[in-house]
């Protein structure tokens, strides 16, 4: 696949630089646990390389069920935006991951100091939430609706 555009490209250069200044590079080996369902959502990531699986706990000692995977160029984590600031899903690195990590407290402080940046960022993350909600609905409809099914 070709190099995707950055999901932060929507920000003007100055604001992008301001945001990047609070971020730092991180890497995770394949299999590393990035966060667990219910844990404190105090950061988010911009994925640069590798794949991350979003999963959910399944009772009865079963392995976590993978709901979705995210890859390079995508934003990981939106639960830091709104109460109760707890992760709705868990996340595990499927392959080695390189990412830029952003602490929520720093980003929220930036947003408070620069409402334009805050507004733009919130719009971007609202888009992420909307995309994932819609994708979930489509999968549910495709998988479980009585009329589900492909062409002959």
């Amino acid at each position, binding site marked *: 696949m*070709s*190099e*995707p555009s950055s999901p932060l490209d929507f920000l003007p250069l100055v604001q992008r630089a301001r945001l990047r200044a609070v971020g730092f590079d991180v890497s995770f080996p394949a299999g590393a646990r990035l966060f667990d369902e219910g844990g404190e959502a105090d950061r988010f990531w911009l994925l640069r390389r590798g794949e991350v699986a979003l999963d959910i706990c399944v009772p009865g000692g079963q392995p976590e069920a993978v*709901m979705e*995977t995210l890859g390079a*160029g995508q934003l990981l984590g939106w639960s830091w935006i709104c109460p109760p600031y707890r992760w709705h899903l868990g996340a595990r690195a499927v392959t080695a991951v390189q990412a830029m990590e952003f602490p929520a407290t720093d980003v929220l402080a930036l947003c408070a100091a620069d409402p334009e940046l805050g507004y733009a960022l919130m719009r971007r993350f609202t888009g992420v939430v909307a995309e994932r909600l819609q*994708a979930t609905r489509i999968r549910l409809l495709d998988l479980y609706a009585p009329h589900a099914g*492909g*062409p002959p």
Partner: protein
Amino acid sequence: MSTVTPPLPYRVAETRAETADTRSLELVPAGRELPPFSPGQFAMLYAFGIGEVPISVSALHGPHGGLVHTVRAVGAVSAALYDLRPGETVGLRGPFGTGWDLDAAAGQDVLVIAGGIGLAPLRPVVHAVLDRPDIYGRLGILVGTRTPGDLIYRGDIERWRDRAEVGVTVDRPGPGWHGSVGVVTTLLDAFALRPDRTHALVCGPEVMMRHTARTLMGRGLAAHRVQVSLERNMRCATGHCGHCQLGPLLLCRDGPVVGYDRVERLLAVREL
């Protein structure tokens, strides 16, 4: 072909298991031959004594030079076709339908997006584009299936990775699956889409095609740059019986491939 014709006998030259319930049949004429098919066109396959169903051509030339159709056993007729063995005979009418407009994609990037067995009618497109790299730009192949076991043409997909940008995602991963999970449109994030010079060809469940088309349009692709392959209840395949009507369209004749600009509104009309 627009007139009713009797089915011509074709012999099963070879069968190939794709998944637990899906099989590809290579068919060679047992006598008179049908006119050539184009990618995206379909034939009416007649299981003698049982019935007839429309099946898109999934390769124009199989190993024996015959037409290839990929059949998923979901009903009495498709199950009978699925059970055919080499040497047995099937009735064939066609070619029917519009096929993919590959002329419109000349000089452009081609983005093939398939859901499940929707990859079957798109496989001849992949063959055509790979055969003529001088005519087309980049080729993206994005495939979504319900489970890893539902993925058809695994060998082809691995071979295509050398010459195209290929992504595969599943709804429900099983043990040993280390690839993407989620709707097929999530694979678009890794494809550097050039909206002003890309044609997207989409086939799969209707809800998947609508979601995909809307996502593509949200990323700047004009509706006329998106082609979808629509299926309705095709019976006569000649535009006479009306079973496959979608508003002003009779999909066996005016489809199955249509520009999304023609059907976007129709697909949102409740009564159609």
